[in-house]
Protein backbone atom coordinates (compact mmCIF):
# COMPACT_ATOMS: atom_id res chain seq x y z
CA UNK A 1 0.00 0.00 0.00
CA UNK A 2 2.87 2.28 0.88
CA UNK A 3 4.07 2.22 -2.74
CA UNK A 4 0.64 3.07 -4.09
CA UNK A 5 0.61 6.27 -2.03
CA UNK A 6 3.28 8.04 -4.04
CA UNK A 7 1.40 7.30 -7.24
CA UNK A 8 -1.80 8.42 -5.55
CA UNK A 9 -0.14 11.73 -4.69
CA UNK A 10 1.26 12.02 -8.20
CA UNK A 11 -2.21 11.43 -9.62
CA UNK A 12 -1.18 8.56 -11.88
CA UNK A 13 -3.48 5.83 -10.51
CA UNK A 14 -6.49 4.60 -12.46
CA UNK A 15 -9.92 5.39 -10.92
CA UNK A 16 -10.27 1.76 -9.77
CA UNK A 17 -6.87 1.83 -8.07
CA UNK A 18 -7.70 5.16 -6.44
CA UNK A 19 -10.90 3.69 -5.05
CA UNK A 20 -8.98 0.78 -3.50
CA UNK A 21 -6.50 3.16 -1.88
CA UNK A 22 -9.32 5.44 -0.69
CA UNK A 23 -11.01 2.49 0.98
CA UNK A 24 -7.80 1.61 2.79
CA UNK A 25 -7.01 5.21 3.79
CA UNK A 26 -10.35 5.53 5.58
CA UNK A 27 -9.18 3.13 8.25
CA UNK A 28 -5.42 3.71 8.40
CA UNK A 29 -3.99 6.79 10.14
CA UNK A 30 -0.41 5.85 9.28
CA UNK A 31 -1.12 5.76 5.55
CA UNK A 32 -3.01 9.04 5.71
CA UNK A 33 0.01 10.73 7.26
CA UNK A 34 2.25 9.07 4.70
CA UNK A 35 0.04 10.29 1.87
CA UNK A 36 0.05 13.82 3.32
CA UNK A 37 3.85 13.80 3.19
CA UNK A 38 3.89 12.66 -0.44
CA UNK A 39 1.18 15.13 -1.36
CA UNK A 40 3.21 17.91 0.24
CA UNK A 41 6.21 16.99 -1.90
CA UNK A 42 4.05 16.66 -5.01
CA UNK A 43 2.51 20.10 -4.46
CA UNK A 44 5.85 21.73 -3.73
CA UNK A 45 7.63 19.99 -6.60
CA UNK A 46 5.31 21.34 -9.28
CA UNK A 47 6.74 24.75 -10.21
CA UNK A 48 3.28 25.79 -11.44
CA UNK A 49 4.59 28.10 -14.14
CA UNK A 50 3.29 28.92 -17.58
CA UNK A 51 5.47 27.34 -20.25
CA UNK A 52 6.68 29.39 -23.21
CA UNK A 53 4.01 29.71 -25.90
CA UNK A 54 3.99 28.24 -29.42
CA UNK A 55 6.40 31.00 -30.48
CA UNK A 56 9.08 28.65 -29.12
CA UNK A 57 8.35 26.25 -31.96
CA UNK A 58 8.94 29.03 -34.50
CA UNK A 59 12.33 29.66 -32.91
CA UNK A 60 13.04 25.91 -33.00
CA UNK A 61 12.20 25.73 -36.72
CA UNK A 62 14.40 28.75 -37.41
CA UNK A 63 17.25 27.11 -35.53
CA UNK A 64 16.68 23.90 -37.47
CA UNK A 65 17.21 25.82 -40.72
CA UNK A 66 20.13 27.91 -39.51
CA UNK A 67 22.18 25.41 -37.53
CA UNK A 68 23.73 22.54 -39.45
CA UNK A 69 22.95 18.95 -38.62
CA UNK A 70 26.01 16.96 -37.76
CA UNK A 71 25.99 14.25 -40.42
CA UNK A 72 25.65 10.81 -38.88
CA UNK A 73 28.82 8.77 -39.15
CA UNK A 74 28.54 6.13 -41.80
CA UNK A 75 29.19 2.64 -40.58
CA UNK A 76 31.71 0.62 -42.51
CA UNK A 77 29.13 -0.21 -45.14
CA UNK A 78 31.54 -0.18 -48.05
CA UNK A 79 31.94 2.51 -50.69
CA UNK A 80 29.50 5.39 -50.78
CA UNK A 81 27.61 4.69 -54.00
CA UNK A 82 25.83 8.06 -54.05
CA UNK A 83 29.14 9.92 -53.90
CA UNK A 84 30.61 7.83 -56.72
CA UNK A 85 27.49 8.44 -58.82
CA UNK A 86 27.69 12.18 -58.17
CA UNK A 87 31.36 12.31 -59.17
CA UNK A 88 30.56 10.29 -62.28
CA UNK A 89 28.38 13.18 -63.44
CA UNK A 90 31.32 15.59 -63.13
CA UNK A 91 33.54 13.65 -65.54
CA UNK A 92 33.85 15.70 -68.70
CA UNK A 93 32.47 13.90 -71.72
CA UNK A 94 34.93 15.68 -74.06
CA UNK A 95 37.87 14.21 -72.16
CA UNK A 96 36.36 10.73 -72.21
CA UNK A 97 35.63 10.90 -75.94
CA UNK A 98 39.09 12.31 -76.72
CA UNK A 99 40.75 9.56 -74.68
CA UNK A 100 38.81 6.89 -76.54
CA UNK A 101 39.66 8.52 -79.87
CA UNK A 102 43.40 8.68 -79.16
CA UNK A 103 43.35 5.08 -77.96
CA UNK A 104 41.53 4.01 -81.13
CA UNK A 105 44.22 5.76 -83.16
CA UNK A 106 46.80 3.80 -81.17
CA UNK A 107 45.04 0.56 -82.05
CA UNK A 108 45.10 1.41 -85.77
CA UNK A 109 48.81 2.29 -85.61
CA UNK A 110 49.62 -0.86 -83.64
CA UNK A 111 47.82 -3.10 -86.10
CA UNK A 112 49.47 -1.41 -89.08
CA UNK A 113 52.86 -1.57 -87.33
CA UNK A 114 52.54 -5.31 -86.81
CA UNK A 115 55.64 -6.43 -84.88
CA UNK A 116 56.01 -3.39 -82.60
CA UNK A 117 52.38 -3.27 -81.47
CA UNK A 118 53.42 -3.33 -77.79
CA UNK A 119 55.67 -0.30 -78.26
CA UNK A 120 52.88 1.69 -79.87
CA UNK A 121 50.43 0.95 -77.08
CA UNK A 122 53.15 1.66 -74.51
CA UNK A 123 53.41 5.15 -75.97
CA UNK A 124 49.70 5.84 -76.33
CA UNK A 125 48.10 4.42 -73.17
CA UNK A 126 50.30 6.18 -70.56
CA UNK A 127 49.91 9.63 -72.07
CA UNK A 128 46.14 9.25 -72.40
CA UNK A 129 45.86 8.24 -68.74
CA UNK A 130 48.25 10.95 -67.52
CA UNK A 131 46.32 13.63 -69.43
CA UNK A 132 43.02 12.38 -68.03
CA UNK A 133 44.36 12.30 -64.48
CA UNK A 134 45.68 15.86 -64.80
CA UNK A 135 42.07 17.05 -64.98
CA UNK A 136 40.79 15.51 -61.73
CA UNK A 137 41.72 18.33 -59.37
CA UNK A 138 42.11 22.06 -59.10
CA UNK A 139 40.13 25.29 -59.17
CA UNK A 140 40.52 25.87 -62.90
CA UNK A 141 39.43 22.55 -64.30
CA UNK A 142 36.96 21.35 -61.71
CA UNK A 143 33.47 22.86 -62.12
CA UNK A 144 32.61 21.86 -58.55
CA UNK A 145 35.89 22.84 -56.87
CA UNK A 146 34.42 25.59 -54.69
CA UNK A 147 31.48 23.41 -53.68
CA UNK A 148 33.74 20.49 -52.87
CA UNK A 149 35.98 22.75 -50.78
CA UNK A 150 32.95 23.85 -48.75
CA UNK A 151 31.44 20.41 -48.07
CA UNK A 152 32.26 18.29 -45.06
CA UNK A 153 33.26 15.41 -47.33
CA UNK A 154 37.01 15.00 -47.29
CA UNK A 155 38.83 16.42 -50.35
CA UNK A 156 41.04 13.36 -50.31
CA UNK A 157 38.11 10.97 -50.56
CA UNK A 158 36.73 12.88 -53.54
CA UNK A 159 40.15 12.91 -55.19
CA UNK A 160 40.47 9.16 -54.71
CA UNK A 161 37.03 8.54 -56.18
CA UNK A 162 37.76 10.70 -59.24
CA UNK A 163 41.16 9.11 -59.70
CA UNK A 164 39.57 5.68 -59.58
CA UNK A 165 36.92 6.68 -62.11
CA UNK A 166 39.29 8.36 -64.58
CA UNK A 167 42.15 5.90 -64.27
CA UNK A 168 39.69 3.00 -64.28
CA UNK A 169 38.15 4.30 -67.51
CA UNK A 170 41.57 4.66 -69.16
CA UNK A 171 42.58 1.23 -67.90
CA UNK A 172 39.49 -0.31 -69.48
CA UNK A 173 40.20 1.56 -72.72
CA UNK A 174 43.79 0.31 -72.78
CA UNK A 175 42.70 -3.27 -72.02
CA UNK A 176 40.11 -3.10 -74.77
CA UNK A 177 42.72 -1.71 -77.16
CA UNK A 178 45.10 -4.53 -76.29
CA UNK A 179 42.35 -7.09 -76.82
CA UNK A 180 41.48 -5.64 -80.23
CA UNK A 181 45.13 -5.54 -81.30
CA UNK A 182 45.67 -9.13 -80.13
CA UNK A 183 42.52 -10.30 -81.95
CA UNK A 184 43.60 -8.62 -85.17
CA UNK A 185 46.89 -10.48 -84.98
CA UNK A 186 49.03 -7.46 -84.08
CA UNK A 187 50.88 -9.36 -81.38
CA UNK A 188 52.38 -12.81 -81.63
CA UNK A 189 53.02 -13.05 -77.87
CA UNK A 190 49.32 -12.56 -77.01
CA UNK A 191 47.36 -10.00 -75.04
CA UNK A 192 49.38 -10.31 -71.83
CA UNK A 193 52.61 -9.16 -73.49
CA UNK A 194 50.78 -6.10 -74.75
CA UNK A 195 49.38 -5.27 -71.30
CA UNK A 196 52.80 -5.60 -69.68
CA UNK A 197 54.18 -3.16 -72.23
CA UNK A 198 51.92 -0.27 -71.14
CA UNK A 199 50.71 -1.05 -67.60
CA UNK A 200 53.84 0.05 -65.67
CA UNK A 201 54.47 3.29 -67.53
CA UNK A 202 50.75 4.11 -67.47
CA UNK A 203 50.61 3.78 -63.67
CA UNK A 204 53.86 5.69 -63.17
CA UNK A 205 53.04 8.56 -65.50
CA UNK A 206 49.50 8.89 -64.10
CA UNK A 207 50.77 8.94 -60.53
CA UNK A 208 53.36 11.58 -61.39
CA UNK A 209 50.71 13.62 -63.16
CA UNK A 210 48.41 13.32 -60.15
CA UNK A 211 51.04 14.52 -57.70
CA UNK A 212 51.93 17.47 -59.93
CA UNK A 213 48.34 18.52 -60.57
CA UNK A 214 47.56 18.44 -56.87
CA UNK A 215 50.72 20.31 -56.01
CA UNK A 216 51.20 22.79 -58.87
CA UNK A 217 48.18 22.52 -61.14
CA UNK A 218 47.35 20.89 -64.47
CA UNK A 219 49.82 22.78 -66.71
CA UNK A 220 52.87 21.41 -65.01
CA UNK A 221 51.31 17.96 -64.72
CA UNK A 222 50.65 17.67 -68.45
CA UNK A 223 53.96 19.32 -69.25
CA UNK A 224 55.97 16.87 -67.16
CA UNK A 225 54.05 13.88 -68.50
CA UNK A 226 54.60 15.01 -72.10
CA UNK A 227 58.29 15.67 -71.50
CA UNK A 228 58.84 12.18 -70.16
CA UNK A 229 56.75 10.82 -72.99
CA UNK A 230 58.78 12.60 -75.67
CA UNK A 231 62.03 11.38 -74.15
CA UNK A 232 60.70 7.86 -74.51
CA UNK A 233 59.32 8.49 -77.99
CA UNK A 234 62.60 9.99 -79.22
CA UNK A 235 64.90 7.51 -77.46
CA UNK A 236 64.78 5.24 -80.47
CA UNK A 237 65.79 7.91 -83.01
CA UNK A 238 67.08 11.40 -82.20
CA UNK A 239 68.29 10.57 -78.71
CA UNK A 240 69.68 7.15 -79.57
CA UNK A 241 73.23 8.44 -79.04
CA UNK A 242 72.60 9.38 -75.39
CA UNK A 243 72.90 5.84 -74.07
CA UNK A 244 72.19 6.61 -70.39
CA UNK A 245 68.96 8.36 -71.31
CA UNK A 246 67.81 5.36 -73.28
CA UNK A 247 68.66 3.13 -70.32
CA UNK A 248 66.74 5.38 -67.94
CA UNK A 249 63.62 5.57 -70.05
CA UNK A 250 63.89 1.82 -70.50
CA UNK A 251 63.73 1.38 -66.73
CA UNK A 252 60.83 3.79 -66.34
CA UNK A 253 58.99 2.39 -69.33
CA UNK A 254 58.53 -1.11 -68.10
CA UNK A 255 56.19 -3.04 -65.85
CA UNK A 256 57.98 -4.24 -62.75
CA UNK A 257 57.99 -3.98 -58.99
CA UNK A 258 59.92 -0.70 -58.95
CA UNK A 259 57.56 1.18 -61.28
CA UNK A 260 54.61 -0.17 -59.31
CA UNK A 261 56.07 0.90 -55.97
CA UNK A 262 57.07 4.37 -57.22
CA UNK A 263 53.60 4.86 -58.68
CA UNK A 264 52.06 3.86 -55.34
CA UNK A 265 54.29 6.23 -53.37
CA UNK A 266 53.53 9.14 -55.72
CA UNK A 267 49.78 8.48 -55.43
CA UNK A 268 49.91 8.41 -51.64
CA UNK A 269 51.91 11.64 -51.65
CA UNK A 270 49.33 13.25 -53.94
CA UNK A 271 46.46 12.23 -51.66
CA UNK A 272 48.30 13.66 -48.65
CA UNK A 273 48.97 16.95 -50.47
CA UNK A 274 45.35 17.12 -51.67
CA UNK A 275 44.03 17.57 -48.13
CA UNK A 276 46.09 20.71 -47.65
CA UNK A 277 44.30 23.06 -50.00
CA UNK A 278 44.54 24.51 -53.47
CA UNK A 279 47.48 24.05 -55.82
CA UNK A 280 50.19 26.70 -55.74
CA UNK A 281 49.17 29.57 -58.01
CA UNK A 282 51.81 31.89 -59.34
CA UNK A 283 49.66 33.96 -61.63
CA UNK A 284 47.89 37.01 -60.29
CA UNK A 285 44.30 37.97 -60.95
CA UNK A 286 45.40 41.40 -62.22
CA UNK A 287 48.68 42.44 -63.77
CA UNK A 288 50.65 45.41 -62.60
CA UNK A 289 51.15 47.89 -65.43
Amino acid at each position, binding site marked *: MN*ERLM*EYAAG*TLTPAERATVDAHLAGCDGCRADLAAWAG*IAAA*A*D*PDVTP*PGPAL*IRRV*LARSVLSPVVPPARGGSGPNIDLVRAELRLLRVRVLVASAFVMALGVVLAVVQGGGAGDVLALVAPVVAAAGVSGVYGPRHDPAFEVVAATPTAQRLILLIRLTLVFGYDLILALAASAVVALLGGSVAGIWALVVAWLGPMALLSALSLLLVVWFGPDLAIGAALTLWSLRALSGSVLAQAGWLVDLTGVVWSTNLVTGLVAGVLTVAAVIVAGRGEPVRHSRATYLT
Partner: protein
Amino acid sequence: MGTDEVDAALLGLVARGDSAALTRLYEAHSGRLFGYLLRLAGDRGVAEEILQDTMLAVWRSAGSYAGGARVTTWLFGVARRQAHNRLRNVAPPVPAEAVDRPDGTPGPDELAIAAAGGTPVAEAIGRLPDHQRDVIGLVFVAGLPLADAAEVLGVPVGTVKSRLHHARARLAQLLSRQGVPE
Protein backbone atom coordinates in the same frame (compact mmCIF):
# COMPACT_ATOMS: atom_id res chain seq x y z
CA MET B 1 -8.58 7.58 -30.21
CA GLY B 2 -6.81 7.95 -26.83
CA THR B 3 -4.16 10.55 -26.10
CA ASP B 4 -1.39 8.03 -26.74
CA GLU B 5 -2.71 7.32 -30.24
CA VAL B 6 -3.11 11.06 -30.91
CA ASP B 7 0.48 11.65 -29.79
CA ALA B 8 1.77 8.81 -31.96
CA ALA B 9 -0.14 10.15 -34.97
CA LEU B 10 1.23 13.67 -34.37
CA LEU B 11 4.77 12.34 -34.05
CA GLY B 12 4.30 10.46 -37.32
CA LEU B 13 3.33 13.74 -39.00
CA VAL B 14 6.32 15.50 -37.42
CA ALA B 15 8.59 12.81 -38.83
CA ARG B 16 7.24 13.72 -42.29
CA GLY B 17 8.10 17.39 -41.74
CA ASP B 18 4.72 18.73 -40.58
CA SER B 19 5.56 21.77 -38.42
CA ALA B 20 1.91 22.31 -37.41
CA ALA B 21 1.95 18.84 -35.86
CA LEU B 22 5.08 19.80 -33.94
CA THR B 23 3.24 22.84 -32.55
CA ARG B 24 0.27 20.67 -31.52
CA LEU B 25 2.54 18.12 -29.88
CA TYR B 26 4.32 20.95 -28.08
CA GLU B 27 1.09 22.52 -26.85
CA ALA B 28 -0.09 19.16 -25.53
CA HIS B 29 3.06 18.55 -23.48
CA SER B 30 4.78 21.92 -22.96
CA GLY B 31 3.47 22.41 -19.41
CA ARG B 32 4.77 19.12 -18.07
CA LEU B 33 8.00 19.23 -20.08
CA PHE B 34 8.77 22.75 -18.95
CA GLY B 35 7.97 21.97 -15.32
CA TYR B 36 10.25 18.93 -15.41
CA LEU B 37 13.10 20.86 -17.06
CA LEU B 38 12.68 23.73 -14.61
CA ARG B 39 13.07 21.22 -11.78
CA LEU B 40 16.26 19.89 -13.38
CA ALA B 41 17.77 23.24 -14.36
CA GLY B 42 16.54 25.39 -11.48
CA ASP B 43 16.49 28.42 -13.75
CA ARG B 44 13.73 29.57 -16.08
CA GLY B 45 16.04 30.83 -18.82
CA VAL B 46 18.10 27.63 -18.88
CA ALA B 47 14.96 25.48 -18.77
CA GLU B 48 13.58 27.38 -21.77
CA GLU B 49 16.79 26.80 -23.72
CA ILE B 50 16.68 23.08 -22.94
CA LEU B 51 13.02 23.01 -23.97
CA GLN B 52 14.07 24.49 -27.32
CA ASP B 53 16.85 21.91 -27.63
CA THR B 54 14.32 19.20 -26.85
CA MET B 55 11.81 20.31 -29.49
CA LEU B 56 14.63 20.67 -32.03
CA ALA B 57 15.71 17.12 -31.25
CA VAL B 58 12.10 15.94 -31.59
CA TRP B 59 11.79 17.77 -34.93
CA ARG B 60 14.95 16.17 -36.25
CA SER B 61 14.64 12.69 -34.85
CA ALA B 62 10.89 12.04 -34.79
CA GLY B 63 11.52 9.34 -37.37
CA SER B 64 13.60 7.39 -34.86
CA TYR B 65 10.60 6.87 -32.54
CA ALA B 66 10.20 3.13 -32.70
CA GLY B 67 6.70 2.97 -31.26
CA GLY B 68 7.74 0.68 -28.43
CA ALA B 69 7.22 3.14 -25.57
CA ARG B 70 4.47 5.70 -25.09
CA VAL B 71 5.19 9.00 -26.85
CA THR B 72 5.29 10.83 -23.51
CA THR B 73 7.95 8.47 -22.24
CA TRP B 74 9.96 9.02 -25.42
CA LEU B 75 9.54 12.81 -25.13
CA PHE B 76 10.76 12.91 -21.54
CA GLY B 77 13.67 10.67 -22.48
CA VAL B 78 14.66 13.20 -25.17
CA ALA B 79 14.21 16.11 -22.72
CA ARG B 80 16.30 14.38 -20.10
CA ARG B 81 19.16 13.74 -22.53
CA GLN B 82 19.08 17.35 -23.74
CA ALA B 83 19.12 18.58 -20.14
CA HIS B 84 22.12 16.42 -19.37
CA ASN B 85 23.90 17.67 -22.50
CA ARG B 86 23.41 21.28 -21.49
CA LEU B 87 23.81 20.96 -17.72
CA ARG B 88 26.83 18.67 -17.83
CA ASN B 89 29.29 21.55 -17.60
CA VAL B 90 27.16 23.94 -15.58
CA ALA B 91 27.73 24.32 -11.86
CA PRO B 92 24.56 23.69 -9.83
CA PRO B 93 22.72 26.95 -9.19
CA VAL B 94 22.44 26.31 -5.46
CA PRO B 95 24.83 24.46 -3.14
CA ALA B 96 23.84 20.84 -2.54
CA GLU B 97 24.44 21.20 1.20
CA ALA B 98 22.21 23.46 3.24
CA VAL B 99 24.20 26.04 5.14
CA ASP B 100 23.73 25.73 8.90
CA ARG B 101 22.53 28.90 10.50
CA PRO B 102 22.57 28.56 14.30
CA ASP B 103 20.95 31.88 15.09
CA GLY B 104 17.71 30.97 13.26
CA THR B 105 17.33 34.35 11.56
CA PRO B 106 16.43 34.23 7.85
CA GLY B 107 19.54 34.11 5.68
CA PRO B 108 19.85 35.33 2.09
CA ASP B 109 18.40 32.06 0.75
CA GLU B 110 15.27 32.30 2.84
CA LEU B 111 14.83 35.94 1.91
CA ALA B 112 15.19 35.03 -1.75
CA ILE B 113 12.60 32.26 -1.39
CA ALA B 114 10.20 34.60 0.34
CA ALA B 115 10.73 37.21 -2.35
CA ALA B 116 10.05 34.66 -5.08
CA GLY B 117 6.91 33.44 -3.34
CA GLY B 118 8.26 29.87 -3.12
CA THR B 119 7.85 27.46 -0.25
CA PRO B 120 10.68 26.06 1.86
CA VAL B 121 9.80 22.56 0.60
CA ALA B 122 10.14 23.68 -3.02
CA GLU B 123 13.44 25.31 -2.21
CA ALA B 124 14.63 22.15 -0.43
CA ILE B 125 13.73 20.08 -3.50
CA GLY B 126 16.04 22.37 -5.45
CA ARG B 127 18.84 21.36 -3.11
CA LEU B 128 18.41 17.61 -3.62
CA PRO B 129 21.10 15.68 -5.49
CA ASP B 130 20.52 15.54 -9.27
CA HIS B 131 19.27 11.95 -9.44
CA GLN B 132 16.68 12.55 -6.72
CA ARG B 133 15.44 15.79 -8.30
CA ASP B 134 15.24 13.94 -11.61
CA VAL B 135 12.95 11.23 -10.23
CA ILE B 136 10.79 13.75 -8.35
CA GLY B 137 10.48 15.77 -11.56
CA LEU B 138 9.42 12.73 -13.59
CA VAL B 139 6.91 11.38 -11.08
CA PHE B 140 5.41 14.50 -9.45
CA VAL B 141 5.92 17.23 -12.05
CA ALA B 142 5.72 15.31 -15.32
CA GLY B 143 3.19 12.93 -13.77
CA LEU B 144 4.65 9.81 -15.36
CA PRO B 145 3.54 6.45 -13.91
CA LEU B 146 6.38 4.77 -12.01
CA ALA B 147 6.92 2.24 -14.80
CA ASP B 148 7.32 5.01 -17.39
CA ALA B 149 9.65 7.00 -15.14
CA ALA B 150 11.73 3.85 -14.76
CA GLU B 151 11.89 3.51 -18.54
CA VAL B 152 13.03 7.11 -19.00
CA LEU B 153 15.70 6.69 -16.36
CA GLY B 154 16.72 3.25 -17.61
CA VAL B 155 16.43 1.70 -14.13
CA PRO B 156 14.07 -0.89 -12.59
CA VAL B 157 10.81 0.33 -11.03
CA GLY B 158 12.14 -0.70 -7.62
CA THR B 159 14.99 1.78 -8.01
CA VAL B 160 12.52 4.58 -8.82
CA LYS B 161 10.63 3.81 -5.63
CA SER B 162 13.75 3.67 -3.48
CA ARG B 163 15.03 6.94 -4.97
CA LEU B 164 11.72 8.59 -4.10
CA HIS B 165 11.97 7.32 -0.53
CA HIS B 166 15.55 8.54 -0.25
CA ALA B 167 14.55 11.91 -1.65
CA ARG B 168 11.77 12.20 0.89
CA ALA B 169 14.10 11.32 3.76
CA ARG B 170 16.64 13.82 2.51
CA LEU B 171 13.98 16.53 2.25
CA ALA B 172 12.90 15.87 5.85
CA GLN B 173 16.54 16.18 6.90
CA LEU B 174 17.06 19.46 5.00
CA LEU B 175 13.85 20.96 6.34
CA SER B 176 14.44 19.95 9.96
CA ARG B 177 17.86 21.60 9.76
CA GLN B 178 16.13 24.81 8.80
CA GLY B 179 13.56 24.36 11.54
CA VAL B 180 10.65 23.83 9.14
CA PRO B 181 8.24 20.99 10.03
CA GLU B 182 7.79 18.55 7.16
